[in-house]
């Protein structure tokens, strides 16, 4: 993959463009193979994004989030 997509929606949009291009049958062999490679990378990225919100619901209260952020910031500031 050349660049990581900015977001899930950007990745899905590009993936749809790739599949449309491949379905058109107008891509040459080199382009087809390049598009397939890029498409697989995008699918991998999207799967990872879905996995990130698929492992288990986490519930935090606002002050817990603030505490967590403060503690994670400490090592960097020390």
């Amino acid at each position, binding site marked *: 993959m050349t660049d990581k997509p900015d977001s899930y929606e950007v990745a899905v949009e590009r993936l749809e463009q790739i599949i449309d291009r491949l379905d058109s049958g107008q891509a040459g062999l080199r382009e087809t193979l390049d598009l397939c490679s890029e498409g697989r990378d995008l699918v991998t990225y999207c799967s990872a994004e879905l996995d990130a919100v*698929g492992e288990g619901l986490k519930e935090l209260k*606002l002050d817990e989030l603030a505490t967590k952020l403060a503690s994670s910031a400490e090592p960097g500031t020390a």
Partner: protein
Amino acid sequence: MEEEAISAADSAPRPGPDLPGPFAVGRYARKLQEEMRRRARVLLVGEVTGVGRSKVQAYFELRDGEGAVPCAIWLDDLEKAGLPSGALRDGAEVVIAGGPDYYPGGGQASPSFSFRATHVRLAGEGDLLARLEALRKQLQAEGLFELQKQLARPLLPKTIGVVTAESGAARRDLLAGLERRGWRGTVVWAFAPVQDRHAAPRIAAAIQDLAAQPQVEAIVVTRGGGSLADLWAFCDETLCRTVAMLRVPVISAVGHERDSTLIDDVAAVACSTPTHAAEAAVRLDCVAARGELERGLASLRRAAESGVRTRTPHLVALARGPARALRRERLALNQKTREIRAASERGIAERLGFQRRLATVVLERARQRAAGAEMERRRTALHRVEVALRAHEPERTLERGYALVEDRAGEPVVDAAAAVAAGRVKLRFADGSVGAKIEEQD
């Protein structure tokens, strides 16, 4: 009053601007009371805060988002209003009738201003709706309904913030909606009261705190249904202005479908239920998305395989190319060889023919040499005829100064009528030709 003004302190210069007075303050206070009591009696609507009682009257502040007025009502008048017990309490929305009053105070008592209410009733839905409508028009005119709607909402947020009551069906319904979406990210709860008079500022503070967290990509504000009075906190002007100005999208799900609070107007999305709010916060159905990704991957595999498969015959043909090319060249070479052979055979035949023709010419010349005397005689006679003939050629005439008239086709024009008919003619002299135009016949 002026005649009672205390005379200026004798010879001392007057401080301050040149105004009437000074007057005795007690009398001025009583005049002020009279002025106040002459003002028009009106109806006011607002929220009751700071209720207190003395032996003879109840006092409180009536306020809304823009300001407040201190109020007082005699206990007799309050009793006549027939309100349910405890109805005049903090947070109650009431309509009062009365006018401004001023208590001038006394020797020990402090002066005070108040709106003297003579009647009081709990605000009805109509009163609240009228206030809501006025506020709605105002915020809309300021463009505050559009700001949130212009924000980009993430398709798949990893963290969402939720403002709701800690206990309540809304919280449970929202979680169920997220579960149905197949979404199991992080929910950050900011619990706040959703009904009493402290609700609006607490809700506004909770939303602001959530928006300040960089991980929070969308905020849901939700509570269950109720009367408009119950939901009144969500029509608070300050709260709605806060929501409108946030850069994080806010999804409101307050009350039931028929309820329309002001926060619904300013939010990025207004939903009828917490379940719908879950779908608006996580726009992607994660379960369906996984299926679509599988199908996308299958499409890519098919495309790659097909891309190679459809080109295989061509590749095979290319691979066989050298043998076929050699065969083709060999055939072409054989053909050339045949052509060269045929050409050389033709050349030999042609050379034999040429030699035959040469021999014929040589023989003929030998024969002519044998008949030489007769030929010389004939040649001399011919020369004479030729000289005579040349004397008659037109060129000889032209050399003597005559001109030949020809038409455009080069045919001689031999009379005047033909010259006129030709119009344009060519005059041919011995040294060249010129064009001429026939104008008229003499």
